[in-house]
């Protein structure tokens, strides 16, 4: 459970982007080694970084040239020499442009150099897949980084989680890929105001308890999975919804314990099907809790297909409540 549900904690109502903005401000106030680099970050196109240059100065808040690989690498070098950069890669598909630095430098330098390097850096990337932006601006690339040892991966699915996980990420001594889901940007909830509100990595949130099916949901799939669970409740199907919140490290204990209880597993994941987070979760559950599974598990994902532009072609393309509910019913009907 997130601390946001604890009534004893002082909170304020924020949307997802405002929570991210607040996390950055708090961490930059707390630690002057935290810097912010990114395209248009002084103006702040999405509203998470604008005017931070006025508060923290243009030495620490820097709008970069359109050189994703170059400034990702500069961030890594700064992290290796005493700073804690937050790199705003803006749109998630731009991580491909910086892939060499992310994989060959950020992920590998500490290991290759026998532990000499400490690389405290956060790469923020917004997944715009809900906005009819076409194939170049609609990516959900987090599975690539689950396959890249040396990085940690966060996929916050609520404003409070976005704040708490980002603050933890900034204080972490490792390189972190932080994927922000645009389909959640307008979501609002009570977010703890404490500057020490931290959500640890590797700790899943059980968003709803249930007894018939374990439904693990990733990023923007979380609210859609909760909607599906409500629909299914009317049919007498009790669904446990789990948000892992971070994919590296991944809270296997919570998922495995739930599967042991329900005997059924569905994973809703807005990434493409093959080698998705859903694939990894199914594989690991099959390896480690096979005897608990009463029926074959199921993935509800985006198909292995590029993202089209026209809204008409996007109907049912991503995991929505209906597709997720259909997946759960299929598993339950199986036995």
């Amino acid at each position, binding site marked *: 459970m997130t601390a946001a549900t604890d009534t004893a904690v002082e909170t304020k109502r924020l949307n997802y982007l405002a929570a991210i903005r607040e996390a950055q401000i708090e961490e930059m106030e707390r630690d002057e080694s935290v810097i912010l680099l990114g395209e248009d970050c002084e103006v702040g196109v999405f509203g998470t970084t604008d005017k931070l240059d006025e508060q923290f100065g243009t*030495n620490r808040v820097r709008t970069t040239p359109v050189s994703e690989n170059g400034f990702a690498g*500069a961030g890594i070098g700064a992290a290796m020499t005493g700073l804690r950069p937050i790199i705003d890669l803006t749109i998630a598909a731009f991580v491909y442009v910086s892939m060499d630095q992310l994989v060959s430098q950020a992920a590998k330098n500490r290991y290759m150099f026998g532990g000499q390097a400490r690389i405290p850096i956060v790469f923020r990337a917004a997944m715009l897949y809900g906005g009819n932006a076409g194939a170049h601006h609609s990516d959900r690339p987090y599975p690539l980084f689950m396959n890249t040892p040396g990085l940690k991966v966060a996929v916050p699915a609520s404003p409070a989680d976005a704040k708490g996980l980002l603050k933890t990420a900034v204080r972490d001594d*490792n390189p972190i890929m932080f994927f922000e889901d645009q389909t959640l940007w307008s979501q609002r909830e009570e977010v703890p105001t404490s500057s020490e509100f931290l959500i640890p990595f590797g700790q899943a949130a059980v968003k709803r308890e249930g007894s018939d099916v374990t439904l693990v949901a990733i990023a923007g799939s979380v609210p859609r999975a909760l909607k599906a669970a409500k629909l299914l409740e009317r049919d007498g199907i009790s669904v446990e919804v789990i948000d892992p919140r971070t994919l590296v490290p991944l809270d296997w204990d919570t998922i495995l314990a739930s599967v042991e209880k329900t005997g059924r597993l569905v994973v809703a994941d807005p990434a493409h099907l093959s080698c998705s987070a859903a694939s990894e979760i199914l594989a690991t559950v099959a390896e480690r809790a096979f005897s608990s599974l009463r029926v074959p598990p199921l993935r509800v994902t985006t198909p292995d297909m590029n993202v089209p532009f026209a809204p008409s072609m996007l109907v049912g393309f991503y995991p929505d409540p209906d597709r997720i509910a259909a997946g759960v019913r299929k598993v339950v009907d199986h036995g």
Partner: protein
Amino acid sequence: MHDKDLLVEMQRRMLRIRRLDDRARELNLQGEIAGTIHTSTGQEAACVGATAALRDDDYITGTHRSHGHPIGKGSPVDGLMAELMGKSTGVCKGKGGSMHLADFSVGSLGESGIVGSGVPVAVGAGLSAKIRGTDQVALAFFGDGAAAQGAVHEAMNLAAVWDLPVIFLCENNHWAVTISVCDHSAVPEISQRGPGYAMPGVSVDGNDPVPVYEATLEAVERARAGGGPSIVEALTYRVQEHAQGLPISREYREQAEIDEWLGRDPIDVHGASLVAAGVLTETELSQLVEEVHEEMEAAIEAARAAEDPPPAAAFEDLYADEPDVAVAR
């Protein structure tokens, strides 16, 4: 004339690089060094001339052909040779090997087996120095081949627009594996690109450490004083093959070209200068060689006596907070 001790130290470090590479080649053939190695033979003046212009607390990043850079920066040969030999006493505990040496204790932030990939990291070290308000500088070694990489362009532009204390030190050895710089770069000298980034660019004789030192020092002093980045190009030559053990089936360069450069061996060039200037006698020069050879044999013997890292060590050093992640996995 420059400080005598500095001139002698440059010769000593060039000899170390030469000897480490020579012995590494032999140990590789004997099976005591696994994998492949890329030697700096013939390029020692570029490594040492450049690093001689740096302070202990300045940063460097290297390349795939980079045994010489940490030596130039002052890293002891024991840890480097042990690393090449895959020992737990290596600078990277056996996790890096020939293409990924690093010695953070002397400001060597590591080599990169991906061509050009270390250059943005050096820019980040320069950015860090500027933000932290120190007067450290960062020097990125790269080759003529890396000059064709987008990462190098992005790094140079970024350093220039932010006036960062960075020296882009191009070791132009004229060959990127089998392609001549004349065929892979639109300009024959990489320093010619300086004006495109509004930064000074200069090319010097890269087979003599003194002009490399002087040009680098000028760039370093400018960077420390807030004058921004520079390109310093050491014109040198790769006298050996790209990598030991890499079979190249077709001739791609003239023996006469190799011979010409072999005739200007940097160790001979600088050695002759030291004798001519009365800094060292011939006998003292020979003693220096002997000392370096003894030092290297001691490093090899120590590495031979050291433990191989156990298989379990492969699972260390991935994350700074390993226990948490290991438990979760």
